[in-house]
């Protein structure tokens, strides 16, 4: 039979149920692949012993004909999810040694369904970044390379470890989070499927907070079906998160393969950017014609406020972050400076030593826009523009069922290529950030390769809590694209 690591999550799940493979075998296989892939730097903490214990328990349940929806499936967990008894860093030096005494709701849900944790995955520090280069643990390297070129490329960010490990078949699937595009942009850059559900669909409890009104957990997986399986387990109401929504979680997998005939697909003209590679424009057109061939109705729409979404984000997200990250003060957990004169300098030195440059930059911006005299001009204005962007989507969804756009404005770029200018880096999220501001579900599906052999994704956005229609559309795109390319395993 084929290698275990070549099986999708869905096929692995079925093989485990039929006892063709044991959870212990699958776990050992993935652990050895992870160990051999250290060049990708996708993992911060490998939890091999815990994984083997969990796999053993899964095999015991499977032997009795029991077991949950993910029984025995080895997963990678973004290091933003608190895991009981396992180091949780958020990619930051300031969380040195932080070992939570509790488990995040999303990961609890996965363990409830029988999944196995392989390890904690690398990420941009506090999820602030689009290239994984802000991680204290060093950048993740994309398994994909340009054809005939060994330049190390970014897997995107902030969920770069999740995207790279799924693309490199180092885990069956991974958890991720998305505040401005941190699931969808890395998915696009690594030919994986990334789903950011509606705000409120997954509990934020136990996820290290970045920008609370925007943060949302979701899966990065090999294909649409795997993403549907993952999301069903991850999602659900949680009284411990007051913004979590109490409504039933549908069987997303059941939506796959349902006809998309008659679905109205919106194509927003404002997602066509000056200087965007022609290949991305062509792929977008290709995506439009795939949906048309599948029986969808294509509707040209206009979302004129699109260009203001990123500036709104860079007020709202840093403002919320400056407040959320106030808790890192060297008192309750994490790093405390050795040298200080009094309590204020202990705070100041601990934070100066513990935070990286991008995190400091965003805390300073957030503090500035919330400070007396600037609050109205920046923060309040940004919240009002946010409302207008939200209303613009609400109006668009009166005419269309889904919106189709490119996922990211470029393919994977070289490490170090965009670090000089923060605003250039921020532009990576130009197509994804609108969904966070409006709380909408969005997903990236691999759709093609550029001339250099690098993957490009297409994004689908849906109405709030209409992930089922989104999954229907994603599956149709995936079927039409027939994307099968894989990176060479140069790291093994």
């Amino acid at each position, binding site marked *: 039979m084929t290698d275990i690591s070549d099986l999708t999550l869905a096929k692995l799940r079925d093989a485990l149920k039929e006892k063709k493979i044991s959870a212990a075998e699958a776990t050992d296989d993935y652990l050895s692949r992870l160990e051999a892939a250290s060049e990708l730097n996708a993992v911060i903490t490998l939890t091999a012993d815990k994984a083997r214990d969990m796999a053993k328990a899964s095999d015991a349940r499977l032997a009795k004909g029991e077991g949950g929806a993910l029984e025995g499936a080895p997963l990678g967990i973004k290091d933003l999810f608190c895991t009981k008894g396992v180091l949780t860093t958020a990619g930051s030096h300031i969380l040195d040694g*932080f*070992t*939570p*005494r*509790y488990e995040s709701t999303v990961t609890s849900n996965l363990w409830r369904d029988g999944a196995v944790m392989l390890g904690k995955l690398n990420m941009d520090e506090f999820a602030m970044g689009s290239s994984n280069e802000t991680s204290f643990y060093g950048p993740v390297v994309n398994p994909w390379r340009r054809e005939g070129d060994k330049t190390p490329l970014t897997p995107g960010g902030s969920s770069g470890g999740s995207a790279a490990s799924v693309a490199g078949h180092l885990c069956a699937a991974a958890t991720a989070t998305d505040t401005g595009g941190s699931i969808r942009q890395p998915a696009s850059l690594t030919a994986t499927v990334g789903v950011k559900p509606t*705000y*409120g669909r997954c509990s934020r409890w136990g996820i290290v907070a970045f920008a609370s*009104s925007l943060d949302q957990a979701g899966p990065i997986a090999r294909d649409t079906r795997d993403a549907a399986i993952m999301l069903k387990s991850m999602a659900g109401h949680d*009284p*411990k998160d*007051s*913004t979590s*929504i109490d409504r039933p979680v549908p069987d997303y997998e059941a939506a796959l393969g349902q006809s998309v005939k008659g679905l109205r697909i919106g194509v927003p003209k404002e997602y066509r950017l000056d200087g965007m590679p022609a290949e991305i424009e062509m792929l977008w057109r290709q995506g439009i014609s795939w949906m048309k061939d599948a029986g969808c109705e294509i509707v040209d729409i206009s979302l004129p*406020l699109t*260009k*203001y979404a990123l*500036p*709104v984000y*860079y007020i709202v997200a840093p403002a919320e972050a*400056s407040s959320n990250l*106030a808790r890192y003060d*060297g*008192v*309750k*957990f*994490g*790093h*405390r400076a050795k040298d*200080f004169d*009094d*309590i204020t300098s*202990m*705070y*100041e030195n601990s*934070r*100066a030593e513990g935070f990286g440059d991008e995190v*400091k*930059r965003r*805390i*300073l*911006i957030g*503090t*500035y826009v919330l*400070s007396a005299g600037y609050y109205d001009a*920046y923060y309040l*204005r*940004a*919240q*009002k*523009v*946010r*409302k*207008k962007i*939200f209303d613009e989507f609400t109006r668009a969804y009166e005419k269309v069922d889904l919106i189709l756009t490119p996922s990211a404005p470029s393919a994977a770029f070289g490490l170090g290529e965009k670090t000089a*200018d*923060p*605003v250039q880096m921020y532009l990576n999220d130009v197509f994804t950030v609108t969904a966070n*501001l*409006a*709380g909408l579900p969005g997903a990236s599906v691999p759709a093609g390769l550029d001339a250099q052999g690098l993957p490009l994704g297409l994004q689908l956005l849906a109405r709030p809590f209409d992930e089922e229609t989104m999954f229907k559309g994603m599956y149709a795109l995936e079927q039409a694209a027939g994307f099968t390319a894989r990176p060479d395993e140069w790291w093994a």
Partner: protein
Amino acid sequence: MAIDKDTVRKVARLARIAEPEDRLEPLAKELSGILGWIEQLNEVDVEGVEAMASTVDVSLPLREDRLQEGDTGGGQPDNVVANAPKTEDHFFVVPRVVE
């Protein structure tokens, strides 16, 4: 609006981040660049628009006012201080605050 060195010093102080004197000027430049780009928001007419803090359109749920059990419940001082850099008898230890 461009921000200067003194403003950066003040904001860093508010944020409790020690920034060395020679970082203030480069930071002022970086932050001014970002804020300059953000200022395109002034082009948008927001007259009469309500500010949106959350996309979740529900009032916050209330629970009964009694001690919770489990992770969010009380009575677990060991867990509360487990990750602190310095503790004593379930207290966080910090430098002297009151003379």
